[in-house]
């Protein structure tokens, strides 16, 4: 066992450049994937808040009698897909605008006439928060005569979703390409080592060293490189995370980093990547010794 690990560690000294190269390629491969994972993680966290706010806002014509509004809002509450209906008066809308749109505080304060209409904010039950249901609801609400206009913010969520898918695809492709490169580099390193040590390996076999003894160092070497690559990827991701966090980009929403389980998964994945690369390569090249 000690001999096996010693041989594995020796390989780093024998070919430091190639070893470093394998580790960094694995790291980059996992970093790219990890970075996407972080973005996805944060996006999901952000979207979870947004999705709960998915709602249809019906702006009401000025001067609509309160009774009409009350009956209508009761009607709408009875729709199967509707969770809540809130009435927001013009005054409330103005007050809200003043607090949320800080930049325009002065503009709103100096107004003599309230330009904002009263509205009904209709939120949907879970399971109905998709574009189709939202549109159908919007159409029904629009049918009320006192409703001037209906807005719903589903569009940008959809676009975000699509963007996330495209980004995911791109990132996965890049990650996969890096993984392939890493496997090739690890394979090449092992091929070189096998050739370099062909004599030694032949003698090991001749005197009756078990297969584990011959392969062990190579497998351990690959696994170790993968593990280091995974660790480096986590480190790089963390640096990226800090960079975003330090930037204004992240402030306000509060970015999240990987959970320990995610970190463990990245390291495990790296280890498996390195191990399988060396497994394949050792199997192929040892046959020729």
């Amino acid at each position, binding site marked *: 066992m000690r001999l096996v690990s010693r041989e594995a560690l020796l390989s780093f000294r024998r070919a430091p450049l190639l070893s470093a190269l394998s580790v960094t390629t694995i790291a980059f491969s996992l970093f790219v994937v990890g970075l996407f994972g972080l973005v996805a993680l944060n996006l999901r966290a952000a979207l979870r808040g947004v999705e709960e706010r998915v709602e249809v806002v019906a702006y009401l014509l000025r001067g609509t009698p309160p009774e009409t509004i009350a009956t209508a809002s009761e009607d709408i509450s009875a729709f199967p897909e509707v969770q809540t209906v809130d009435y927001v008066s013009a005054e409330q809308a103005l007050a809200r605008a003043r607090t949320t749109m800080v930049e325009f505080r002065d503009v709103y304060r100096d107004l003599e006439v309230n330009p904002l209409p009263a509205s009904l904010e209709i939120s949907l039950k879970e399971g109905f928060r998709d574009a189709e249901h939202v549109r159908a609801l919007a159409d029904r609400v629009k049918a009320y005569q006192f409703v001037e206009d209906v807005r719903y913010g589903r569009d940008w969520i959809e676009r975000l979703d699509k963007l996330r898918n495209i980004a995911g695809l791109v990132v996965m492709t890049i990650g996969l390409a890096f993984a392939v490169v890493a496997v090739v580099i690890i394979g090449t390193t092992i091929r070189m080592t096998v050739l370099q040590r062909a004599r030694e390996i032949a003698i090991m*076999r001749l*005197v009756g060293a*078990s297969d584990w003894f011959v392969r062990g160092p190579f497998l351990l070497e690959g696994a170790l490189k993968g593990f280091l690559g995974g660790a480096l990827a986590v480190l790089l991701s963390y640096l990226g995370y800090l960079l975003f966090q330090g930037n204004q980009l992240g402030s306000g929403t509060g970015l999240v980093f990987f959970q320990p389980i995610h970190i463990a998964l990245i390291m495990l994945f790296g280890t498996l990547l390195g191990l399988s690369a060396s497994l394949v390569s050792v199997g192929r090249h040892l046959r020729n010794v």
Partner: protein
Amino acid sequence: MQGTCASLCTLHPVPCTLYLFIVIQFSHVFKSFPKGGFALKDASLHVAKGEFVFLTGHSGAGKSTMLKLMYAEQRPSSGDVRVSGFAIGELSPSEIPRLRRRLGIVFQDFRLLEDRTAEENVAFALEVTGSRRESIPGRVQRVLAQVGLAGKASAYPRELSGGEQQRVAIARALVNDPAILLADEPTGNLDERATRGVFQLLRDINAGGTCVVMATHDLDLVRQTSYRTVELREGSIVFDSGLDESNGAELP
């Protein structure tokens, strides 16, 4: 057991008692070349425990092939090869190391690791077969003394003469206490004096009870002794002094 013995005895007129001590057995072994033709044709051979056997013949006659079959570097195309109780034809990959730990193997080109000293080369065989660490130095010193190199334990192969390098290789082969020592042209690269020394060492090892199978085309060496001689020609065993002394005239 008796039945097997009787049927074998009809094939080869070897005293039945010997069959109880057979350590190497070839029965109608063929080994074909990948590109056609045979490296070994219908070879049958029995080697008893403690025997010294010369395999002779020109290069390409099949000596090395027979040795390779013995240490499972190759498998027979047909026929049966048994070495130290292992059926070579049916050996699983995990059994090959177990077979080889019972064998010592030396070659014409020594096959030493240049970046290790004599004692490290010998210790290597113990390390990679999982011997207990504490036991290694003692065993290495003992076997180096046995081959007469106690004083050169820390010399690198390049600092040793050919004969000395071959002694290191023999020490490595012996360190696992093999029952059988296989030697493929062990004196092929050596001058006359070194040849005599190495050969004497092999004889001493044999005298200690180890079976030695030595492939050589050095007929002077063969004639010096009365050891059993098996001659190969184009893949066939054409002469076996252990079977039929009257054929002795065939030996050139």
